[in-house]
C-alpha cells in the first residue's frame, strides 16, 4: 500500500483533516505539539484506491528545531530508517495565514514529490476579509490546491479526488537563488548523483539550506555526502553568499510574491476578539487571577460535583456485588469474587468520574486555545528555574498522565531543557494519584467540606509542582549539555468555542482505557493480592483459624509485609500499608485496591448506609498498633500523601523515559531518586510532625 504524508504548520488543522480523511479519532488540540510522533490511518479515495495516510508532527519548516520536527523532515526526505519515503504529500495550509504557511510548501515542493495543497480554514479566512484566488495560487505553486474546511468535513471529497492516481505531476521549484547558490545546487546535485543517494536534488537543496543538516551527524546521510555538501557550501560562501541565508530569503520573497498575487487581505487595524480577550487573560495581574481562579474551580469541582457520579458508580458496584455474590455458597471462590475481584477493582473504578472531570478541564483548555496562554504566563516563572515556558505544555499534560507529557517534550528545541522536563514531569500529580489522594484526603478531613478538601488537593498539586521546579533549578547546572541559547517563541492561536465533540470522544477513550487497565492489570494484581492474603490458610484448631487478623499476619502477604515493615515503620506505616506501597510500585491505583483487600478481613460489619469508601476509611481509622494506638493518625495520612506526591510508582513511565532519553541510566536513576526522595520526605513529615503532636 502506498503511503501519503500529511504535513503542515502547527495549528493548521492537520489532525482534524487526518480524522476527516481516514475516519480515525486521532487526538487534536489547539496548541502545537499534540502530534508528537507519526500516526497512520487508511485513506480510501472515491476511485477505490487505498493508501496509508501518515499524520506527521506539525512543523514551521523542514529545518528542525526539535525532535518531533526532525521526524517530519526525515520521513519526507526518506532518511528515516525502516520507513519508506512517502509516494505523495498532502500539505495543509491555513488560508487565513497564507503568508506564514506557504514557506513550508516551498520547502516541500523542493523534495521532488507529488503534492496536493489542502487550503484549510477557508471560512476563517473569509471572516477575516481575506480573499484567496485558489486557481491563481495553484498556478503559481504549480500544484493542485483544494479549498476545504476540515472541521466541518467540507472539501474532503474534493481532496480525495485530487489525491487519486496517477498522482499530480511533481512540481518545479518555485524560487530562484542567487548565482552562487544556484551553482552550488547544480554542482552538489551532480556530485550526489554519483554517490547513488536517492533524490539527489532534494538532498542537495536541503543540505545547502540547513547548516545543521550538513554539519551534524544524521542517521540517513553518510559522512562523505555531508563533506561534499560542506565543500559546496564553502565554495558559495567564498563567493560571498551563505547558501542557507540566500535560500531562506529567496523562499520568503517568492512566498510574498505569490501572496501578493493570489491573496487579498483587507486592512484590519482594529483588535480582534482574541486580542481583546488576551488583554485580560494575559494581563500581568488579571491573567494570574484568572489562571489561579480557574484552577481552584477545577479542584473544587473534582471534589464536590464528582460526588454524584461517584455515587452512581458505587451503586453499580454494589448491585454487581449483590447480584454475583448473593447466591454463592460461602468459601474461597465467594471470597475471591467479593473481596479480591469486585472490591479490588471497585476501589479504583469508583474514581473514574474524578479522573474524567480533570481530563474534561484539560480538554477545555486545549480546545479553546487557553493552553498556550497558560504556557505564556508560566514562562516568566519557569525561566527563573532554568526552564522555558515551552516546558509548561508537557508538564501540564503530565497532570493527566506523565507518559504523554514526557512524549510532548519532543516539541522542545533544547536537548538539555527536554531532559530536565522529562526528569521532573512525574512530579506533576497525574490522574492515577487522584484515587489515593481522594481516599486519604477524605480520611484526613472527614468533617470538613468540599472546599477545604479541594484546597488540600490543590495544595498537593502545588507541592508536587513547586518541588519539580525547585528540582529543575537544582539540576539545571548539573545536567550535561550545551548551554544553547533558546528563545521563547510560541504561536497563540485564536480562541475558539470548545470542541465538546472532541472532548467527549477523548473522555470516552480515556474512560475505556482506564476500565481496560482496571480489567487487566488491576484485576490481575487484585487476584494476586487476594491469594497472598488468603494463603497459606491457618490450620484447624490454631488461634489463627478463628482470628482473621492473625490469619492475615500469617499469610504470605503478612510475611512480606512484616519483612517490609522496618523500611516503612519510620514513616508511620504498618506492614499492611507497606505491602500496599510495594504493590503500588507497578501502578499507583493499586494502593487502594491493596488496602481494600487487606482491610476487608476485619470482622466489623457495616450494614448501614455507609458507602464503600466510608467503610474502607472507617476500617483504616479503626486499625491499631499492638499497643492499641491508631495506625492512621492525621500525621500518618499526611506522610502517605507526601509519599504519593513524590514517588514515581509507575513502571510504564520508566519505560517511556528510557525510550525518550535513550538511556537506562536516566530512567533507573529517576526511579531510584524519586523513590528515595519520597521516602525521605514522608519520613521528615512523620518524624518532625511527631515532635509537635
Amino acid at each position: 500500500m502506498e503511503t501519503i504524508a500529511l504535513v503542515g504548520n502547527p495549528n493548521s488543522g492537520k489532525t482534524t483533516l487526518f480524522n476527516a480523511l481516514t475516519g480515525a479519532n486521532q487526538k487534536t488540540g489547539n496548541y502545537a505539539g499534540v502530534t508528537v510522533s507519526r500516526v497512520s490511518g487508511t485513506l480510501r479515495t472515491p476511485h477505490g484506491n487505498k493508501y496509508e495516510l501518515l499524520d506527521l508532527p506539525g512543523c514551521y519548516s523542514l529545518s528542525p528545531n526539535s525532535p518531533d520536527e526532525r521526524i517530519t523532515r526525515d520521513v519526507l526526505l526518506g532518511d528515516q530508517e525502516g520507513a519508506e519515503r512517502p509516494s505523495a504529500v498532502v500539505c495543509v495550509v491555513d488560508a487565513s495565514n497564507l503568508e506564514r504557511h506557504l514557506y513550508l510548501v516551498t520547502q516541500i515542493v523542493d523534495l521532488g514529490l507529488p503534492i496536493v495543497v489542502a487550503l484549510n480554514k477557508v471560512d476563517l479566512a473569509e471572516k477575516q476579509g481575506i480573499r484567496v484566488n485558489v486557481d491563481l495560487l495553484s498556478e503559481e505553486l504549480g500544484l493542485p490546491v483544494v479549498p476545504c474546511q476540515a472541521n466541518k468535513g467540507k472539501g474532503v471529497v474534493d481532496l480525495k479526488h485530487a489525491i487519486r492516481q496517477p498522482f499530480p505531476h511533481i512540481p518545479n521549484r518555485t524560487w530562484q537563488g542567487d548565482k552562487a547558490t544556484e551553482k552550488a545546487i547544480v554542482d552538489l546535485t551532480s556530485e550526489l548523483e554519483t554517490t547513488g543517494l536517492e533524490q539527489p536534488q532534494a538532498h542537495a537543496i536541503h543540505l545547502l539550506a540547513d547548516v545543521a543538516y550538513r554539519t551534524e551527524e544524521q542517521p540517513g546521510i553518510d559522512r562523505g555526502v555531508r563533506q561534499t555538501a560542506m565543500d559546496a557550501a564553502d565554495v558559495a560562501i567564498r563567493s560571498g553568499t551563505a547558501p542557507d541565508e540566500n535560500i531562506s530569503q529567496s523562499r520568503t520573497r517568492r512566498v510574498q510574491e505569490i501572496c501578493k498575487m493570489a491573496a487579498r487581505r483587507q486592512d484590519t487595524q482594529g483588535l480582534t476578539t482574541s486580542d481583546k480577550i488576551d488583554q485580560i487573560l494575559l494581563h500581568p495581574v488579571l491573567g494570574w487571577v484568572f489562571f489561579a481562579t480557574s484552577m481552584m474551580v477545577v479542584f473544587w469541582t473534582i471534589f464536590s460535583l464528582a460526588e454524584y457520579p461517584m455515587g452512581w458508580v458505587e451503586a453499580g458496584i454494589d448491585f454487581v456485588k449483590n447480584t454475583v455474590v448473593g447466591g454463592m455458597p460461602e468459601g474461597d471462590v465467594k471470597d475471591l469474587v467479593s473481596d479480591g475481584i469486585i472490591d479490588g477493582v471497585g476501589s479504583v473504578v469508583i474514581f473514574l468520574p474524578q479522573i474524567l472531570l480533570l481530563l474534561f478541564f484539560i480538554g477545555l483548555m486545549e480546545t479553546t486555545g487557553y493552553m498556550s496562554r497558560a504556557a505564556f504566563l508560566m514562562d516568566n516563572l519557569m525561566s527563573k528555574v532554568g526552564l522555558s515556558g515551552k516546558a509548561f505544555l508537557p508538564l501540564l499534560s503530565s497532570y493527566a498522565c506523565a507518559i504523554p507529557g514526557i512524549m510532548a517534550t519532543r516539541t522542545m528545541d533544547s536537548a538539555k531543557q527536554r531532559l530536565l522536563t522529562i526528569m521532573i514531569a512525574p512530579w506533576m500529580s497525574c490522574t492515577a494519584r487522584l484515587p489515593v489522594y481522594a481516599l486519604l484526603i477524605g480520611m484526613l478531613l472527614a468533617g470538613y467540606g468540599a472546599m477545604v478538601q479541594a484546597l488540600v488537593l490543590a495544595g498537593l498539586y502545588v507541592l508536587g509542582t513547586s518541588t519539580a521546579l525547585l528540582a529543575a533549578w537544582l539540576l539545571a547546572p548539573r545536567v550535561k549539555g550545551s548551554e544553547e541559547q533558546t528563545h521563547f517563541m510560541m504561536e497563540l492561536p485564536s480562541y475558539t468555542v470548545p470542541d465538546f465533540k472532541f472532548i467527549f470522544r477523548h473522555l470516552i477513550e480515556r474512560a475505556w482505557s482506564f476500565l481496560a487497565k482496571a480489567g487487566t492489570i488491576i484485576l490481575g494484581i487484585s487476584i494476586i493480592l487476594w491469594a497472598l492474603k488468603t494463603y497459606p490458610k491457618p490450620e484447624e484448631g490454631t488461634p489463627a483459624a478463628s482470628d482473621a487478623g492473625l490469619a492475615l499476619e500469617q499469610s504470605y502477604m503478612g510475611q512480606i509485609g512484616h519483612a517490609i515493615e522496618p523500611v516503612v515503620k519510620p514513616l508511620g506505616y504498618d506492614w499492611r500499608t507497606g505491602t500496599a506501597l510495594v504493590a503500588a510500585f507497578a501502578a499507583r491505583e493499586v494502593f487502594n485496591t491493596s488496602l481494600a483487600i487487606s482491610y476487608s478481613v476485619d470482622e466489623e460489619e457495616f450494614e448501614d448506609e455507609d458507602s464503600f469508601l466510608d467503610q474502607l476509611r472507617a476500617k483504616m481509622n479503626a486499625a491499631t498498633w499492638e499497643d492499641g494506638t491508631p495506625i492512621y493518625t492525621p500525621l500518618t495520612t499526611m506522610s502517605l500523601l507526601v509519599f504519593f506526591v513524590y514517588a514515581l510508582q509507575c513502571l510504564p513511565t520508566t519505560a517511556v523515559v528510557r525510550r525518550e532519553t535513550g538511556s537506562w541510566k536516566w530512567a533507573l536513576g529517576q526511579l531510584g531518586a524519586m523513590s528515595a526522595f519520597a521516602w525521605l520526605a514522608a519520613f521528615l513529615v512523620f518524624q518532625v510532625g511527631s515532635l509537635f503532636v
Partner: protein
Amino acid sequence: MIADAANDHHATPATTLSQASAGCQLRISQLEGKACKRLRELGFCEEMEICKLSDGRNMICSVCGTRMALSRKLGDQVMVEMV
C-alpha cells in the same frame, strides 16, 4: 544636544521590535542575528507588517492575523519601522 539627538533619530528611523511601543503598527525592515532564519520560518520576514500587541519579558505580535509570542532577545533581532 537635543538637536543632535533628533538628527540621530532621523538618521536611524529603524528600531528593534523590543524597543517599539506596544500598540504600534510596524513594518519589518531587516532581520539581524542568529535566529533570523527561524524568525523567517515563523513569518517574521522583511516587508511584513506586524502589530505589537503587548510588551514585557515576552512580547506578543500580530503577524498575518496570528498572535506570536516571542522573547525580547528575539525581538532584538527584528528591525522595524513605523508604518
